[in-house]
């Protein structure tokens, strides 16, 4: 499933003194199979955009028609077969295909046991009432892929787990219905460095085996550089750039001008460039180290 947004705009509290234009003519395509990153400041429109993708925020068709009269470009938003600007779209089916993990998802755990919590989404999205055996199997599978031992945690209260474990349970509760696209809003925020690394490894496991496409919103440029195939930079409700990290993080001046950070590897490359040494890497730690060590070989 591809995500295609064209000329997408959205205003909160329209026609009121509190009107805020959160999205302004956003055009963006996410291909199937990508590990896609979304970057931008708080208030840049990232979350508003992401919430459109499973229909939590809708651009009403009436607005679409009125826009057409004003001769402005038609807004469209499609996710695979689903036309999200169409009221008649089956949003339940859409939400089954597009899983959404919010920021700090562990605050949304609610059930008495981990098993019930994870099963909730599965039961909701099942086409016919699943048997207990089916539920158990799906829950165990989901817990295993997020790196938890079902035998150990399934019967426990989710509130007795550590912060990192809670977050995994919350992610398991979303991927249990096997969405094709998984969207996560700052999946690693607030965790300690090792916890962050574990969550990113987990997302790569899910990306290969469960969900074809993964979209993450992140403030951590290192995270984007290490993991993403492409990243979109949001600023003032618009997509300023949408490039692979290799090209994106060469635009140091532009990113700094937007008040954004750059990955550590890009900082070192920049400092090397000032000293007359150019390293052409994709800004992952691995590639940076390989290319830097190759410099030494070349001189010898």
């Amino acid at each position, binding site marked *: 499933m591809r995500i295609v947004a064209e000329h997408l705009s959205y205003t909160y509290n329209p026609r009121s003194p509190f009107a805020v234009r959160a999205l302004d003519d956003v055009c963006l395509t996410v291909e199937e199979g990508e590990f896609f990153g979304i970057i931008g*400041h*708080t*208030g840049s429109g990232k979350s508003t955009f992401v919430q459109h993708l499973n229909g939590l925020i809708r651009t009403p068709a009436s607005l679409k028609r009125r826009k057409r009269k004003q001769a402005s470009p038609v807004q469209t938003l499609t996710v695979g077969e689903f036309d999200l600007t169409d009221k008649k779209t089956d949003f339940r089916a859409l939400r089954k295909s597009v899983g959404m993990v919010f920021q*700090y998802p562990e605050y949304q755990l609610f059930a008495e046991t981990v098993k019930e919590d994870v099963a909730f989404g599965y039961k909701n999205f099942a086409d016919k009432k699943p048997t207990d055996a089916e539920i158990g199997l799906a829950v165990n599978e989901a817990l295993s892929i997020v790196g938890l031992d079902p035998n150990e945690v399934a019967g426990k209260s989710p509130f007795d787990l*550590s*912060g*990192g474990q809670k977050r995994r349970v919350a992610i398991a509760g979303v991927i249990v219905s096997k969405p094709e696209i998984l969207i996560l809003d700052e999946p690693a*925020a*607030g*965790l*300690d*460095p*090792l*916890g*962050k*690394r574990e969550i990113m490894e987990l997302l790569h496991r899910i990306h290969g085996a469960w969900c074809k496409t993964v979209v993450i919103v992140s*403030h951590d440029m*290192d995270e984007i550089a290490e993991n993403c195939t492409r990243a979109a930079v949001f600023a003032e409700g618009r997509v300023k750039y949408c490039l692979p990290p290799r090209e994106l993080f060469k635009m140091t001046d532009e990113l700094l001008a937007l*008040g*954004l*950070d750059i990955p*550590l*590897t890009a*900082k*070192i490359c920049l*400092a*090397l460039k*000032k*000293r*007359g*040494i150019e390293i052409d890497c994709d800004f992952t*730690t691995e590639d*940076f*180290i390989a290319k*830097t*060590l190759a*410099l*030494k070989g070349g*001189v010898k």
Partner: protein
Amino acid sequence: MHAIEFRDVDFSYGEGGFRINKLNFTVEEGEFVAVLGHNGSGKSTLARLANGILEADGGTITVFDTPLNDKNLYEVRKQVGVVFQNPDNQTVASIVEDDVAFGAENVGTPREEIGRRIGFALSAVGMEEYRHATVARLSGGQKQRVAIAGVLALKPRVMILDESTAMLDPRGRREIVDVVLSLNKKEKITVVLITHFMEEALLADRAVVMNRGEIVMQGAPAEIFRRHEELLTYNLALPRIGEISKRLREGGLDVSDTLDPDTLAEDIAKCVS
């Protein structure tokens, strides 16, 4: 003078739960201490013990020469303010100035004095112009600054920040760090900053690493971050730059274990030319 002194402090969350045994820890007046440690290492327990939210099972906790006990708890709490992680959980009123006044009102501060303190606290965190704003409409960083102002209005001598920047974006984080630095340098408030971010810990006078309820490393922050092997034993990730320089050395490039990208580039340039 010691701002906070833990002597042989014991604490446990009950049978089989997390426990602290004979913990000794001091913070000097005016000092800026960073506390590091993986999740569950006891950092927050330390913060909660220091202002009496949790009660020690044994040993003594002394705050500015006053040993903490049931009778002086409220007096001591006025001196030690704590700011927590989630900005949304720490605001009580809907208007900024009411929220800042809340703590001071609760301890019976006279009305005129509260007015002055709101002014002082809001200007210390750079939020004067938001005095009459609605709390719910502020950004995370702004809300967290209001939370800090609410603590400041109590005129504490020590401020403990328990991962107060963890939920903020980079801009919000910078706002908080700037405020904390100026409180420490200008207002001479003693600061204990619990954090996972290396950049923040590097600003402190001293860093302390906790593991399983014990203090396992102490020293100048830059020094601590260079002790790679030890950090790994305590389940702390190496700073990314440390990891890169280490692997370059393993690959045969003689670079130093600096924490500054520019210096690392300088070293690499020297090695390859």
